[in-house]
C-alpha cells in the first residue's frame, strides 16, 4: 500500500455477509480527506451497507477498515462515530418538536463541549429554505423533504469530520435537490462527504464516484 497522508479511509479485503448471504466483497478502496464521493449502483447492490462500514454500523466479516490509519474496531466507538455522522434516507427525528430533534445529540457525553448555536441554526434554516419552520413545530407535521433538511442541518451542527449521506435527495423535488447541492457539495460545511445517490445532478457535483455492482466495487473517477 502506498503511503498517502491524505488517505482518510481505507478498506482492504472486505467481505460482508448478512444472514449468510454475501452482500459485499472487494479488495481495496480508499477515500481521501476533502473528497466529495458519490456511491452509485443498482438498488440492492449493497450501497447502504457499504456506507455503514465507514462508521462501524456494519462490522465486516473479513477485512480491515481504517480511519486515519487506525483500524477498526476502535476502543472508543462513540468518539469515532461523533466524527463520522450519517444522515439516513428516512432520518429518525423523534416525535417531539424541531428543537428537541436538533438538540438531542448535544445531550450525549461525547458532544458535551459543543454548544447548540441557536442563531447559526436559524441561519441554516434560511440557507436550506425552511425558515418558515419554527423551533416549536412538531416533527410529525413536517414533510419528508423538510425532515431530510433538518436532519442534514443537525448533522452539520455537530461539526463532524465526515458526513455520510444515504440517498439525501430521494425524497426531494428538483428545486430542493439544488438547495442541498448548493449547501452541502458547493459550500462544503463538512470537509469530507460520502454519499449514496441515484440523482445524476448530485453525482455530477461530486469530486469522485464509486460504483458498486454485484457486490464488487470500482472507482470510476
Amino acid at each position: 500500500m502506498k503511503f498517502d497522508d491524505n488517505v482518510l479511509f481505507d478498506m482492504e479485503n472486505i467481505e460482508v455477509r448478512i444472514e449468510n448471504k454475501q452482500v459485499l466483497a472487494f479488495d481495496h478502496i480508499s477515500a481521501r480527506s476533502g473528497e466529495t464521493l458519490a456511491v452509485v449502483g443498482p438498488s440492492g447492490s449493497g450501497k447502504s451497507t457499504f456506507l455503514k462500514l465507514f462508521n462501524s454500523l456494519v462490522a465486516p466479516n473479513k477485512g480491515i477498515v481504517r480511519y486515519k490509519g487506525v483500524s477498526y474496531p476502535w476502543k472508543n466507538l462513540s468518539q469515532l462515530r461523533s466524527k463520522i455522522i450519517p444522515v439516513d434516507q428516512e432520518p429518525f427525528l423523534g416525535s417531539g418538536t424541531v428543537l428537541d430533534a436538533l438538540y438531542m445529540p448535544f445531550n450525549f457525553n461525547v458532544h458535551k463541549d459543543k454548544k447548540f448555536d441557536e442563531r447559526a441554526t436559524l441561519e441554516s434554516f434560511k440557507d436550506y429554505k425552511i425558515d418558515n419552520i419554527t423551533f416549536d413545530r412538531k416533527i410529525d407535521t413536517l414533510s419528508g423533504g423538510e425532515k431530510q433538511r433538518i436532519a442534514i442541518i443537525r448533522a452539520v451542527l455537530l461539526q463532524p469530520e465526515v458526513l455520510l449521506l444515504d440517498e439525501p435527495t430521494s425524497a426531494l423535488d428538483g428545486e430542493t435537490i439544488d438547495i442541498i447541492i448548493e449547501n452541502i457539495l458547493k459550500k462544503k460545511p463538512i470537509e469530507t462527504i460520502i454519499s449514496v445517490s441515484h440523482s445524476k445532478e448530485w453525482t455530477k457535483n461530486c469530486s469522485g464516484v464509486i460504483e458498486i455492482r454485484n457486490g464488487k466495487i470500482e472507482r470510476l473517477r
Partner: protein
Amino acid sequence: MNGATDIKLPFMLIGFLTLAIPITLSLIYKINITREIAVSVARMTVQLALVGIVLQYLFKWNYLWLTSIWFIFMIGVADFNILKKTKIKIKKMPFFIFISITISVTSILAFLIIVVIRPTPLYDAKHLIPLGGMILGNSMNGISLALERFYSALTKNKKEYYSYISMGANSDEGTARFCKEAYRAALIPTISNMATLGLVSLPGMMTGQILGGSEPTVAIKYQIIIMIAIFSSTSISALLSLKFLKRAIIDKNDLITDKI
C-alpha cells in the same frame, strides 16, 4: 396467642363444592375452560399441600442451611417463570436472572431481618421464608415486566437506537430511553398497589397474621415494612437484570446482536 380455627378435612372438601358454580357456568356458556379450571385447581392444591409439609419440617428443624436450600429452589422456580413469561432466548438469561434475584432479594431480606425485625434466632425460618417469598415473588414480576418491555422496545425501535449510536451516543446513552421505560414498567404495579393498599381488601400477609392471632397494629407494621422491602427489591432486581440484558444483546461495536 390463639391461632386460626383449623378447618376440618371433610369441611375443606365441602368448600371445593363452590367450584361447581364456575364449572357449570363455563359449560352452559361453552367457555371451554373447564379443563383449565380443573388443572389449575389441582395444581394449586397439590403444590400447597406439598409446600405445607415441607414448611412444617423447615420450621421445626430451623436450620439455616436447610432454609437456604429452600430459597435457592424458590429462586430457581422464579427464574424459570421469568424465562417462560418473557420468551427471550438468550443463552445467559437463566444465569443473569438468577444473579439479579439473588443479589436483590438476599440483601433486602437480610436488612429487614437483621436490622428491622430482629427475631430470635436471626435465621428463624418462620420469618425468613414467608417474608423472603413475598419479596421474591414481587421481584420476579418486576423483572419479567422490565425485561419484556426493554426487549420489545429495543427490537421495535432499532432505527431509533442506531440513530443515537450513529451520532456518537455510547450504548448506555443509546438505550437510556428504553431502559427508563422498562424500569418504570417494573415499578408501576407496586407503586399503584401501595397507594390503594388496605382500602379495598386487606393484604394477604396482614390477613394471615390477624387470623393467626396477631394484633392488627402488629400486622400493619409488618405489612408496611414488607411493602417497602418489596418495592426496594423490585427496583434493584429490575435494574440489575436490565443491565445484564443490555450487555447480552449489544455487542462490542454497540450493535444489536443479530441473535434477536
